């Protein structure tokens, strides 16, 4: 995998980064025993969502933008509905908000279970895939499949189907699920909560590479609960905090040659979104049970080791099950599924916490509800600079490993982010150079 460069440098490369959503690559160059340059290459072909959303109706983004990502469609549906309701000056009911949170719990469960066990755990346990892992750890894989299925079943009950739910619209839902439908999920949700709490202890026993970074974490914040389907404020480790509506004033996107996904900066600097950021900025909003599980697993109230993101993700998995149970148990039939939303000319922002981190949408619509401008900022594109910083640090820290091991370690450094390259754009091709 190592190639000599004409100038004496070396490049190490891998065809494609595996076990991430979407496809992309990595390029690291070494010279004189030092890391010369690091690039996360995203050459997934662009699909131009922001282009063709122009001219569409304001009611369409929940269905259309869901198709940006098959793994986190609800993140897109939540951000787009909130943006449109903000523009049109509509506030939905508390019940609609609760049902959105419940649907979002389903997405967190499905997505986190997928990443923790099927994409990430094989790195720690030394397997190429979950299928190989199943031969030696059948019980763990059975549990993983059970957890994932519980999330998909929850999404199906609330959204109609697990991928690209059909029940979400601007203003709420087409139909509210009934108490009977939700109660049928209860046994699987209870089992899921218990499994997830046990899984926190399990993943905490993995061997974690020792690496910490001084990230500027950014996440949503809500006064009443841990942020999922929405927040009231954006908060950062740097101490900055502001209402969600002002996010476009702080985040700037820019285009670099080696990526089809736009990079982003927060107040002019790289930043980090995702489970580590949410956890470190909202530990106080977790439930007592999940706080205790996290502390027992050896996490502090903040966590700066990106390899430990698997523990944080598992804590969030348990939290999502608890939240789902809370909402299911409190649910009563008879609530209106939606509120009417008439178009009002204007511009607005909607934001939510996708499984992989903060996502926000900005739209401008005219008085007939036709979209004039759209901007969609998914988590992975915001994280590109942090991913590159981690790659650099990992390559420097483990430069003495052989090519095979170093390549693997660098892949892991990318997988820590649960990158969704389909969202960001996509295509990952992994290359490492050294001399």
């Amino acid at each position, binding site marked *: 995998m190592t190639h000599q460069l004409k100038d004496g440098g070396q490049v190490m490369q891998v065809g494609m980064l*595996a076990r991430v959503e*979407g496809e992309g690559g990595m390029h690291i160059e070494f010279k004189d025993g030092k890391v010369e340059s690091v690039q996360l290459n995203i050459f997934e072909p662009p699909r*131009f969502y922001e282009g063709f959303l122009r001219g569409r109706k304001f009611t369409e983004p929940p*269905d259309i933008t869901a198709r940006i990502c098959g793994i986190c469609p609800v993140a897109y549906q939540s951000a787009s509905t909130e943006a449109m309701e903000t523009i049109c000056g509509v506030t939905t009911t508390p019940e609609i908000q609760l049902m959105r949170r419940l649907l979002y719990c389903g997405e967190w469960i499905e997505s986190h279970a997928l990443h923790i066990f099927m994409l990430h755990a094989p790195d720690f346990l030394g397997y*190429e895939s979950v*299928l190989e892992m199943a031969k030696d750890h059948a019980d763990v894989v059975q549990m993983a*499949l059970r957890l994932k299925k519980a999330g998909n079943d929850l999404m199906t009950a609330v959204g109609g189907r697990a991928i690209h739910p*059909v029940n979400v619209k601007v203003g709420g839902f087409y139909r509210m699920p009934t108490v009977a439908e939700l109660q049928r999920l209860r046994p699987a949700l209870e089992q899921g909560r218990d499994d997830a709490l046990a899984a926190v202890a399990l993943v905490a026993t993995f061997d974690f590479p020792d690496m910490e970074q001084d990230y500027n974490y950014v996440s949503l914040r809500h006064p009443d609960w841990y942020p999922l389907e929405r927040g009231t404020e954006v908060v950062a480790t740097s101490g900055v905090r502001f209402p969600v509506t002002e996010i476009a004033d702080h985040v700037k996107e820019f285009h*670099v040659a080696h990526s089809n996904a736009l990079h982003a900066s927060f107040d002019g600097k790289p930043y980090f979104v995702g489970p580590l950021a949410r956890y470190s900025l909202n530990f106080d909003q977790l439930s007592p049970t999940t706080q205790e599980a996290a502390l027992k697993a050896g996490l502090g109230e903040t966590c700066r080791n990106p390899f430990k993101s698997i523990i944080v993700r598992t804590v969030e998995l348990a939290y999502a099950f608890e939240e789902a149970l809370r909402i299911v148990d409190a649910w009563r039939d008879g609530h209106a599924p939606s509120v009417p939303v008439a178009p009002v000319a204007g511009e607005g922002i909607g934001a939510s916490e996708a499984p992989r981190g903060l996502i926000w949408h900005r739209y401008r619509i005219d008085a007939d509800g036709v979209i004039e401008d759209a901007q969609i900022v998914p988590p992975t594109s915001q994280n590109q600079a942090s991913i590159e910083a981690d790659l650099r640090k990992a390559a420097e820290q483990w430069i003495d490993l052989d090519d095979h091991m170093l390549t693997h370690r660098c892949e892991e450094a990318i997988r820590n982010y649960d990158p969704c390259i389909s969202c960001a754009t996509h295509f990952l091709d992994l290359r490492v150079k050294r001399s």
Partner: protein
Amino acid sequence: MVEHAHTHEHPHDAAVATDPTPPDARPKLAVWKFASCDGCQLSILNCEDELLQIAESIHIAYFPEATRAIVAGPYDLSLVEGSITTPEDVKRIHEIRAQSGTVVTIGACATAGGIQALRNWADVDEFRSIVYAHPEYLSTLDTSTPIASHIDVDYELRGCPVDKTQLVEVLAAFLNGRKPRIPTYSVCVECKLKGNVCVPVATGTPCLGPVTQAGCGALCPSYGRGCYGCFGPQDSANTEAMTRQLAELGMSNADIVRVYRTFNAGSPEFAAASDQAAAASSTGGPS
């Protein structure tokens, strides 16, 4: 699942050489991705109850979303997700055809070009500059086209996303050397089977069910909303009558253009119906 009895015959079977590495009687599966959301290949991993059994019957030889392990081709079965949108991908899909016994395309992107086929009616240069500050960094075609526009495809599985039960049926059919049992009738049939109230009749809600292929289980009408055509046109779609009915239910020509131009916009039937509605519109296109 039935034990492997692969008797499928295909002109490309000549390319299916024996695997030099450990003898493995199972047919080799590869999963490929082009421009798409990953949702259809995720449907494979979403078969929680069947996944381990599938992996016993089929050797998952290339599936980057699921495994780092890469087993070289040729492959007995290639599942292809996504549409063709770059010059490089045109080349890649031909390479995949050459090393695959059977090619099955999965989902609306692969079978109709996906939502990104909206570029087929637009100025892609303008799209580039709306989204990207440096359009010159991008390599992209002016169109998004289905896989079958470029290579011979053995079977197309519809849906945005595909239905996982239908996906398992396609795999089972492949293993048994038979045709998949996938209905091509309309969503209306599924509504009748389910006992759904007809949403356009009962509530005047526009619904693409009459022209859309079944497969989702009449999902949207079950939630009180009109079908929006995820599974593409049914085998004898009468789009003229459909368009008339949408207009009677109060949709403008611009609305009608939009409703045909979503995830299966590039299917010949929906593309033609949208073009007719656009021509009929006084503005000559979607507003």
